[in-house]
Structures are given as C-alpha cells and as structure tokens.
C-alpha cells in the first residue's frame, strides 16, 4: 500500500492500479504532481511550505472529472429484505488516493476505473460515482470493507439491487494487515421509495492491528427517494 508520509527530496514515483503517480520537486517550495493513466499524462503544480511532508491517504471515492457527493453501488446479487427484518452485510467500497500537504488536500487520484451513474430523473436526481463488480476489479487491493446493516421498517418484502450512499464526510481506516475499512453503513428501509442510507462517522468493526484513521468524517445521510430495485 502506498499510503503514508513522504519527504520529497527530489522525485517520488508510485505505481497505482490506474497508472503511475509522480511527485517531483521542480523548484524551491514548488512540486509538480503528474499522473499517467493509459499513457495520457496530466499534471498540476502546487506550492508547499518548506518542511512540510506529503501525506498520501486513502479517501472515499471522490476523484474524477465530475464533482460528486454520492456513491451508486450495484449489488452483485439483489437482497430480498422481508418486512421488519435486520440483515448484516459487507459492502465493498473502492478507495481513492488523497494527496495531502499538512491538513489540506491538494489532489485526488483515482486508483481504478471511474464511472458515473444517474440516480433518479435527470432534473431531480444526482450524479454519483458508480461501483459494480467490474469497477471493483480495477482497484486491485484498494478496496475498503464497510459493515452494513439493513433494517426493514416496512411491512412488505422489498428487493434491493442498488444502494446510494453519501461519499463525503465518511471515515477510512487502515490496519497493519494492509486492509482498508470504511465507516459503518445503516440502511433503514421504510418503503421501496423511501430508504435512508446513513454512513456513520466511525466503524464498529473489530479492526485487528488498527494502524491509523486515514480520513475522518462526521458521517452523512442520503435518502433514496427514487427506488432501490
């Protein structure tokens, strides 16, 4: 895993599943961040205060050319949730790379393929980062696990084939065993057209060898009003 603090003396090169990430010092307090994805290069120049280290952190999927704040996950198999039942599940969330200098984030690099999905009608819905098994495969080991609890507050059985969760204000953890964890997710199913997806600020999973909290958020809520099937 490439997460951690780095002192940039001259040049750092990282191999990431989507390509190569290069950080190079080009002058006093000036750093160039270069990305080469599918032989297409993009770069940006940032100014840093002398003495600062560059911190590479796992962050929720926020990278890409469109600014999003939600994650549309197509479940590998639909879940049938009988009325009043509770189900525990493990969601897999792709991880992006946040380049931090001090406490400020200066770049977000996707570690795999980026695709988007429209949730809801085009005039009232949201464009979210899209996740399915094909997308997850492109992320290699950079996948976080999230303890997810489905709570049915409906009297009928509801089929869930996709979930939309907030991607901002969430928390990401890393362990010494090079495993990544995402904050807990609670899915309250009130009806097929009202499902509340809450991402908590923390994870309650037993995290063996918890190394550090990579990215701390206060938690967030997304209400799915356009169906879950």
């Amino acid at each position: 895993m490439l997460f951690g603090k780095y002192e940039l003396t001259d040049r750092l090169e990282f191999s990431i599943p989507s390509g190569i990430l290069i950080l190079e010092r080009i002058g006093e307090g000036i750093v160039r961040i270069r990305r080469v994805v599918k032989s297409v290069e993009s770069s940006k120049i940032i100014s840093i205060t002398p003495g600062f280290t560059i911190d590479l952190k796992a962050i929720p999927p926020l990278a890409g050319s469109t600014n999003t704040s939600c994650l549309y996950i197509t479940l590998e198999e639909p879940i049938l949730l009988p009325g009043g039942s509770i189900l525990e599940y493990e969601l897999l969330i792709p991880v992006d790379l946040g380049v931090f200098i001090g406490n400020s984030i200066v770049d977000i690099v996707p570690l795999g393929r980026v695709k988007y999905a429209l949730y809801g009608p085009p005039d009232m819905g949201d464009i979210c980062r899209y996740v399915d098994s094909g997308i997850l495969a492109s992320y290699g080991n950079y996948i976080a696990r999230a303890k997810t609890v489905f709570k049915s507050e409906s009297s009928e059985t509801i089929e869930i084939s996709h979930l939309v969760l907030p991607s901002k204000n969430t928390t990401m953890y890393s362990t010494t065993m090079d495993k990544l964890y995402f904050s807990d997710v609670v899915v309250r199913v009130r009806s097929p057209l009202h499902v509340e997806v809450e991402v908590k600020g923390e994870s309650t999973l037993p995290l063996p060898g918890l190394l550090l909290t990579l990215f701390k958020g206060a938690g967030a809520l997304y209400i799915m009003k356009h169906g879950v099937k």
Partner: protein
Amino acid sequence: MVFEKLFTFEFLTRIAIALITIFVFYYIGKIIESQIKKSRIEAPPEIIYNIARVTRVVVIVIGILVALSILEVNLSGILVAAGFAGLVVGLAAQQTLGQLFAGIALILEGRIKIGDSVKIGNDWGIVEYVGLLSTRIRLWSGEVLTIPNSNVMNSNIYNYSVSIARRAEVSVGISYNSDISKAIQVIRRVLDEKELVLAVPPPTIIVDNLGDSAVVLKVLYWTPSQEYWSVRREIIREIKEALEREGIEIPFPQRVLWVKTPVKIESSNT
C-alpha cells in the same frame, strides 16, 4: 399679471425645492437599487435585478409626488387624471404591457435563469439577462439576441441546464458484410471505457435501419449535461477508430447497377 403672480420669489423657491426633491429621490432610488443588487439575498439574479429596478422607479415616483405636493398641486385631481391616462396608455401600449406581464410570469415561474443554456424557438445560447420587458441571450456564435418577453412566453423553451444529465444519440453505419454483433460489442467497449458516459442508465445500441448503403446502428447513452458536446465529439471519433481497428467497414453511399442486356465494351487500342 399672471406671470408676475406665477413667478413670485416664493413660487420660484418652491420650484427649486421640488426639483431638488426629485433629484434627491432619484439618487436615493439609485443608491437603493445598487444596494439591492449588491446584497447577499439568496435569490436568482434576475429577481434581484428586477426588484432593484422596480424599487428605484417607485422611489422616483414618490419623489415626483412629494415635489408636486410642494408645488401645492392637487394630488387627488392628478390621481384621477392618472387613472384615465393609465386607461389610455394601457390601450395604446397593449404590446408593452403584454411583455411586462410575460416578464413577471417568466421570472415568477423560473422557467429560465441567468446562466442557463437554452433554446428559445430556433435560437440557442446562454441567458444573460431576464428583464421585465425582454430577455437577452448570448448565442453560441457570440452575438447577443434580445427577445421580447411575450415572444419568449409564446415560444418553445428548451432549458438544458435544468437536467443534470442528457441522452445523446449517435448513428453509425456499417457495411452489409460486417458482423453486426461484433460491431455492437466494439461500440459497447468504447462507451464502457469512457468515464463520462454514464453506467446508469446503461447505454443502448440498436439496429435502427437497413439503409441504402449501410446497416445503421443507433447508439444511445447518457452523459452529464455540461459535458454533452465534448463527450459526443470524442465518442464519434473513438467509435470510428475502434471500428476501423476491428476491420468493420463504415461504407460510403454506393449503388449496385444490374445491366439487363450485356454491354460490349470496346478497347480504344484495337
């Protein structure tokens, strides 16, 4: 005698005070207008702009009324006259009033806002100003077009900024000798690899027409509205390149001629 009475010092003083009053109210109106425009009210700019203008007009009218009262003009008589004048002006300026009410309806309804990408009738551009009488759009060619609000209300308005995503259609012709399933597979791969082609709703590729020279495939996909044109441009180029790489022919119009009786072709060398 009348002139002497009219131009007494007292009366001239009143005229001066009345003019100063109008002048002061005019400036107060302007200041209020600019303050409203600069305010941080959470409302669309076209609403703020029009409220500011109406407020200025109201303040100036109050100033004129105060000035008239300073001149000891009987305001009730003027108001009655203004009522009749309003009736006459209303009849004479039907078109202008129609535009004014269309403007009010347009602003209240919020069909278009400043900065929206719109197509009004046949004119396509970005809304720069929504006034009480007219709407200004900057066409994609750079010209500024002013349309009376009554015309805006009577036209079909396409507002492309309301939707966050748009569906695009691209037609691709392949030769009758080409493998349709393979062509669909190649096009699907191009769409899958494109970041800004939405995964949901999924792209659709259908055989749309058996044309004169080609089997026409219709490619339908969704993309974020603001990226519509750039994605479409890239998709068309990448589909052509991918089909060429895979040896799938994109034919040009051609005609097969069947000659009923054999034609003898003589060589000029013999």
